[in-house]
């Protein structure tokens, strides 16, 4: 027994031992995060599916709200959703279909839910990607400028703009952008998603701006305060006194160290964009997932609503997990567990 104990101590003392233990810890961390991702997705799917049972009354009539509840359509909906099966059996059917990409048939379209979703997906992805790009470029850029010019007019102007834009709901921004750039100046279209390609990009500029500007403001503030934080630190002082150029100090010492909180906030915010995009898509008449969600609520097509809510939650949780997993790669201090930042 004592022998094993000393061997363990010796193992720990070996330089390689420490490294591999850290690797093991990292692996444990990754597995833990992936497991909690799966657990969250599982509970979310239960919640999304059984939320229907919160509504009192006959499920067939609930699904057929706004449509003629003729005996034939009730029979059709009962067969389609397996409403005569026990609830857990219904869930199993639904989720096993969902995992294979089959969410059943839509009530408002003659197609399957998945086909409708797939047709709408590109617009939303392009919109969120463009808004995310704006957020990162404009947000980090403005924040860095504010930090370098801190205390001066530029800094205060950027901060004020950030307060104003950060507080403006996306749909209000959409209206203002339409009024200025579509109606008054006529630079951009105000409606529709256009043909794929350049035309699509032109159509997405205003929506992406209305979606992204609020986040630009938030990211700018985080960048600014994170960089200001670094500038007060000793390593930056040392770097300056060593006579390194401003460019090197800012890039290698300030920005590199300030990156981790910026990344965290940006990732979480962009994940949230997936939901807000439904408002913006509706405002600009874009044929994306978000406007499909709103229209399906409007047209009482619960099958599509369920599918989209589950997908959005899955995307939201996955992006957040990715951010969590990527962070230690960018900032090894987090993986090492020492919070000396």
């Amino acid at each position: 027994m004592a022998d094993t104990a000393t061997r363990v101590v010796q193992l720990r003392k070996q330089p390689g031992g420490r490294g591999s233990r850290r690797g093991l810890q990292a692996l444990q961390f990754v597995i833990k995060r992936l497991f909690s991702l799966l657990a969250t997705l599982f509970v979310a799917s239960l919640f999304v599916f059984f939320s229907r049972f919160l509504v009192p009354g006959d499920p067939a009539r609930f699904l057929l709200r706004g449509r003629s509840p003729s005996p034939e359509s009730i029979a059709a909906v009962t067969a389609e959703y397996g409403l005569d099966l026990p609830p857990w059996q219904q869930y199993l059917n639904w989720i096993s279909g969902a995992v294979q990409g089959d969410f059943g048939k839509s009530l408002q379209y003659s197609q399957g839910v998945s086909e409708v979703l797939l047709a709408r997906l590109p617009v939303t992805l392009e919109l969120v990607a463009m808004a995310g790009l704006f957020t990162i470029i404009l947000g980090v850029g403005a924040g860095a400028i504010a930090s370098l010019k801190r205390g001066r007019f530029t800094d205060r102007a950027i901060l004020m703009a950030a307060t104003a834009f950060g507080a403006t709901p996306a749909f209000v921004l959409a209206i203002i952008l339409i009024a200025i750039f579509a109606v008054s100046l006529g630079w951009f279209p105000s409606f529709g998603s256009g043909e794929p390609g350049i035309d699509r990009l032109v159509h997405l500029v205003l929506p992406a701006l209305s979606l992204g500007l609020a986040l630009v403001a938030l990211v700018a503030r985080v960048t600014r305060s994170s960089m200001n934080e670094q500038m007060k630190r000793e390593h930056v002082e040392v770097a300056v006194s060593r006579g390194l150029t401003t460019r090197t100090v800012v890039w290698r010492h300030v920005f590199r160290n300030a990156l981790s909180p910026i990344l965290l906030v940006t990732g979480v915010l962009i994940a949230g964009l997936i939901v807000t995009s439904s408002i913006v898509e509706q405002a600009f008449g874009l044929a994306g997932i978000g406007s499909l969600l709103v229209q399906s609520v409007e047209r009482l097509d619960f099958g599509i609503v369920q599918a989209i809510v589950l997908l959005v939650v899955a995307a939201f949780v996955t992006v957040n997990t990715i951010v969590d997993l990527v962070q230690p790669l960018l900032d090894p201090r987090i993986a090492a567990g020492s919070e000396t930042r």
Partner: protein
Amino acid sequence: MTDTQPATTRALSQPVRFKRRNRFFSRVGSAAIVFITLVVLTVIFAPVVAPYNPDHADLMNVLAGPSPAHWLGTDSLGRDLLSRILYGGRTALVGPLLVVVISTTIGLILGLIAAWRGGWIDALLSRIFDFLFAFPALLLAILAIALFGKGLTGPVIAMTIAYIPFIARLARGLVVSEMSRPYVQAYSVLGFRSTWIAVRRVLPNIFPVVGAQATLYFGYVLADLASLSFIGLGVQAPQADWGGMINESRGSLQSGDFLPTLAPALVVILVVVAINIIGEELSERIGGDFS
């Protein structure tokens, strides 16, 4: 000496300065409070203040510009915009108020219980909160509308549930750090009941920080509920609501009549900006004492 320093490094060698303030609120913060008070009062007394019935359509006087009779002009149905904005504030402000008050109350209680009791209750609650964080508030609100129909009731309940974990997690953290402070131990040594210490001594200490955060949430909820009315799922058409008004007047926006949409839009921005400023100043001032 200073002029021998290369100009390029000045930006870095300059210390980050913090302003010292004597008053609790800055000038901007005080202006925000005055503005919000004014908005709340005019909205409460809308029936007295408003010059017209918000639903009275004057089809002879459609899309009129600002005039002494209609300060902000009229919308596409000839309804007085100022009156509609005043009445619309009622639905626009009551929803977020309910959400924030209820979620703060429940969140405080749950956070306090989680921190105070610890053990499996704490573990269970934090599991539930982790799960709820997976649902963005707006998405939960849309799901509630899909289940229970359009209007404000479903979204308000859904958003209350969505915001409880945020408040509860904040409260839990604050209570945990309070528990290590000497005064709690002193009370407990003196034989005061644990529940009494928690409710009468710890809760008042953490409330200001939670309240400041809740103020910020008010702005977010207002924006989200207005968005729902804008896409036609929240407050329904004839009733005046800021988000709904912006939606109704979108047709006249395309023909160049900006006021019917931009007036309520500006009101939404100003109110949310003012609330954010108040919330941020509150948490800056109060947060300093506690962390």
